[in-house]
């Protein structure tokens, strides 16, 4: 009946409980949020910083350099739980891409669960250094056991400029792979 619908709508308007969305700036590459959270820059972050997956599945994680100035080369070392994770594939990121692909080498110490990544820009002139935020590498992992698996940057991580001067990495943020059983 139209009158019943009208009355229902009236009640909805008067007593309805609209809600506000919850603001959660959870993108690890959000510079403003990082500053709000007290994270010093430049930083090394994983994107995404949290992945939900099942045992046996693979997940792609990108390593990002955030708000770095004058970067020319980088060494990134990652600790991971080798009993629960396998590195399946790797690829160079795009931050050091110039007219040619950057030098890119990955060493995976599966016995100790350490991945070492070396990447160098072959750019010349204005392309020899980069400033800003960009990906250094893309890694693909396969989960072999359930659990919360932490990916952590070690102290061996380095950024250098064109003259091989070190660039301080102020923050190294971890990533999490939340693996559940099938």
């Amino acid at each position, binding site marked *: 009946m139209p009158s019943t619908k009208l009355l229902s709508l009236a009640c909805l308007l*008067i007593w309805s409980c*609209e809600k506000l969305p919850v603001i959660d700036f959870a993108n690890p590459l959000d510079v403003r949020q990082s500053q709000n959270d007290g994270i010093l820059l430049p930083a090394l972050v994983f994107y995404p910083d949290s992945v939900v997956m099942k045992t046996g599945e693979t997940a792609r994680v990108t390593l990002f350099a955030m708000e770095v100035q004058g970067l020319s080369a980088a060494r990134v070392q990652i600790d991971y739980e080798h009993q629960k994770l396998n590195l399946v594939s790797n690829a160079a990121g795009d931050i050091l891409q110039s007219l040619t692909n950057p030098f890119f080498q990955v060493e995976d110490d599966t016995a100790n669960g350490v991945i070492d990544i070396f990447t160098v820009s072959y750019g010349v002139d204005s392309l020899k250094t980069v400033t800003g935020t960009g990906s250094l590498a893309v890694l693909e992992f396969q989960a072999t056991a359930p659990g919360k698996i932490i990916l952590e940057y070690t102290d061996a991580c380095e950024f250098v400029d064109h003259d091989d001067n070190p660039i301080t990495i102020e923050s190294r943020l971890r990533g999490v792979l939340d693996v559940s059983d099938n």
Partner: protein
Amino acid sequence: MLRTCAIVSSQFLFSALFAQQLAVLDIAPIEITKDNVLTLSKHFREVISVKLGEASMPPEAIRTVLLGDKVNNRWCAEKWCGEEVGKLLNAEKVIVSSVWKDDEMYRINGLLIEMSSDSVTQSHQFNFVGEEASLFTEVEVMAYQLLSKPMPPELSRQHEYISERSLALQGITERRTRLTATLLSTAVPGLGQFYLKRFLWGGIWFGTELALGSAALSHYITWRNAYRDFFEFEDMYLASTDVIEIENYRNEMLDSYDVAKNAIYRRKEISQIITALWVLNIIHAYFISPSTEEILQEIEVKFAHDPIRREFQLRFAIAIN
């Protein structure tokens, strides 16, 4: 001996003459003067015999028969009594009735007793508050009802007039009208005022609430769209790896949040105004409901025009005595 033979023979003659007829006993009075009730009884019988064409025993003949048995038939208003009298009179049908002035209320009761089956085939009961003169009309109505005859339109109107006036005088109409108007305005703003024929007020209340309701709906839709947009921007924000894009989506999220928040605030404001006006409209409907005096005036105006004759007529009361 001769006298006894004369009475017995008159009874036989009476029985022979009126054996198939209707006996209409005098209306039994309670708190009504004897003279008034006799006038009413006479009118009652006239209606039955003249207007309804029912042959009934003459009252003098009834009294003559009952006198022999020393029965005063004037106080007979019950079935058992009517049956007893009916047997004495050898009547086929008996009508007994009463009029009782109970404080302000007049109560009229009547029974049509079928002697052959010893049962009441028709009954009539009507109570009203009003003038004693209205009893004239009501005993006439009782005659039509007991004998199952259709009432003429004029009599129906008079009966309706007495009935409506009675409800008004008891305050029932005022209470009922006020309650109905209040409930209608509670359900829909302005509807009570429309019911009371205060169309301008009804239109104002309804129009205002409709306009405010539209505004509230508009804010609700704004909230809904902003709420949806927020999550769309959030998805894009989370999926983006470009710092500038991330900043833009972040700002869009915050804008959507502000729009949603303002829409909620405005909608709540308007809802409060709607609620306040709704309550005022209910109170207004309650207080503009007509009083008993106004209702009585309306009744007089309503029944002043005779739709059958299509003319206005003056109404005046005749004292029974």
